[in-house]
């Protein structure tokens, strides 16, 4: 499939019949976990099992936005650490991840939204994250193309401005981490599908794949949108997750016009201009669970309408490419990171919805620590599965069980 060229993360390795650790999924979270297992925990007998090719899932389909202005006290420190890691990883991996900290501007379209933003900003500032409220006029000074007039569907009241956020080249993160992990001895097995997890007496004993069974004592499922289905299929464990297709698109290239990431909850739309000049933009999720990763006319139209209202200079522009990926949504829009609790040696890192790119660096570090010590690091503790039974939902957003444009 890749012709005769050699992958930059080294020679293809033979699949061994046993590894210390097997990671299911060749996405951002597995790659980061593998990298830190090898680099910081001294565990190098690690295999990554990827059904297609690394970066096939959300890793290669996301809109590359990174930020640390989440809502709750548990989330912000994790995302802050992840954000701080981009320049560190760029050096460490000796690979240009193209971190562009151009800043994020979250548009607010009502007084209620401004009030919610004030609380979010207070949390960010408490954790030492730069974030502040600006009015519509100041937003217009930052992004002159913004339409701050009253005669649009959702007039702009102000914005939450978060200067340290921005974008990182998502493919570079996949390739950089793969290169870094492989160099430290991790085996990356592409075109290898996990089809089961073997257990005995409540302990993991191995992973079944379409290329044979691998013995191991520890397994991590971080298969992005497929995690919930795999975990139920392999182990009978149900998760509070709904898997929805989320769509994205880029326009034809333009002269520089948008030098911040701009997003709007009311319009369900976010956009940034890539270094090539295209406007990369993401839409809301499909209204029903599905694994199609297909685009719909409904969202292409929605996106065109939204963008041409708050950024009228984009009117008449053409979309050049469209694509979709999966978002595994939890009821509190916060992930599930857990392990050793349900089955000894079984770990999961899922429910990332559309936030799993910006978090991967820090999560990899802590999941590696979790797996190496069998002790859940404090940073990850609030994200356990039990919180849904214990009425400890995160409040990352006041989300409902179904994610539709009307709630």
């Amino acid at each position, binding site marked *: 499939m890749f012709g005769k060229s050699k992958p930059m993360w080294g020679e293809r390795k033979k699949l061994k019949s046993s590894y210390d650790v097997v990671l299911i999924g060749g996405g951002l979270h597995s790659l980061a976990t593998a990298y830190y297992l090898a680099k910081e925990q001294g565990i190098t007998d690690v295999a990554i099992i990827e059904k297609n090719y690394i970066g096939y899932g959300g890793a290669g389909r996301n809109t590359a936005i990174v930020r640390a202005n989440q809502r709750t006290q548990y989330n912000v420190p994790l995302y802050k650490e992840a954000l701080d890691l981009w320049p560190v990883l760029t050096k460490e991996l000796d690979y240009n991840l193209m971190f562009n900290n151009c800043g994020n501007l979250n548009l607010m379209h009502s007084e209620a939204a401004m009030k919610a933003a004030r609380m979010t900003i207070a949390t960010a500032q408490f954790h030492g994250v730069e974030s502040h409220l600006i009015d519509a006029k100041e937003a217009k000074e930052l992004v002159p193309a913004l339409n701050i007039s009253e005669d649009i569907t959702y007039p702009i009241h102000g914005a939450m401005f978060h200067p340290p956020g921005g974008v990182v080249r998502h493919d570079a993160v996949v390739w950089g981490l793969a290169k870094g992990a492989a160099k430290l001895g991790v085996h990356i097995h592409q075109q290898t599908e996990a089809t089961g997890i073997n257990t005995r007496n409540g302990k993991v004993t191995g992973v079944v794949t379409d290329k044979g069974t691998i013995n191991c004592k520890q397994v991590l499922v971080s298969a992005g949108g*497929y995690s919930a289905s795999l975990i*139920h299929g392999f182990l009978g464990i149900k998760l509070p997750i709904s*898997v929805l297709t989320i769509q994205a698109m880029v326009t034809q290239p333009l002269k520089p016009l948008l030098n911040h990431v701009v997003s709007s909850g009311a319009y369900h739309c976010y956009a940034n201009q890539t270094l090539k000049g295209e406007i990369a933009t993401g839409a809301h999720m499909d209204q029903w669970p599905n694994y199609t990763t297909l685009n719909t006319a409904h969202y292409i139209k929605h996106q065109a309408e939204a963008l041409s209202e708050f950024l009228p200079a984009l009117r008449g522009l053409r979309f050049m490419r469209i694509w979709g990926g999966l978002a595994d949504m939890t009821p509190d829009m916060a992930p599930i990171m857990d392990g050793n609790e349900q089955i000894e040696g079984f770990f999961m890192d899922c429910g990332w919805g559309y936030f799993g790119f910006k978090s991967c660096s820090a999560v990899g570090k802590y999941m590696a620590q979790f797996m190496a010590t069998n002790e859940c690091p404090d940073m990850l503790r609030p994200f356990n599965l039990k919180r849904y039974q*214990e009425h400890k939902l995160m409040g990352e957003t006041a989300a409902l*069980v179904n994610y*539709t444009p009307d709630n």
Partner: protein
Amino acid sequence: MALTLTCPICGKRNGYEFRYGGEEKGPRPEEEGMTPESWCEYVHLNECKAGVQEEWWFHRDGCGSWFKTFRDTTTNLEQPTPAREE
């Protein structure tokens, strides 16, 4: 891909007229002896099947009825009701 659904009253319609109501999970747990676990299971936990599943839909922009249907989540296509074993 475009979704169409067959409402038992209105017939086949555009999927955007409907609201998804969740996976079919059997009867709602009895209030008597209900635990946080059993309620959490009913409200939040899903199988997330990549394939054919039975699910609830609401004809929001139509007749307002709730109904169950089978759908393949990998294609968005409605499926015939499987024959039940006696």
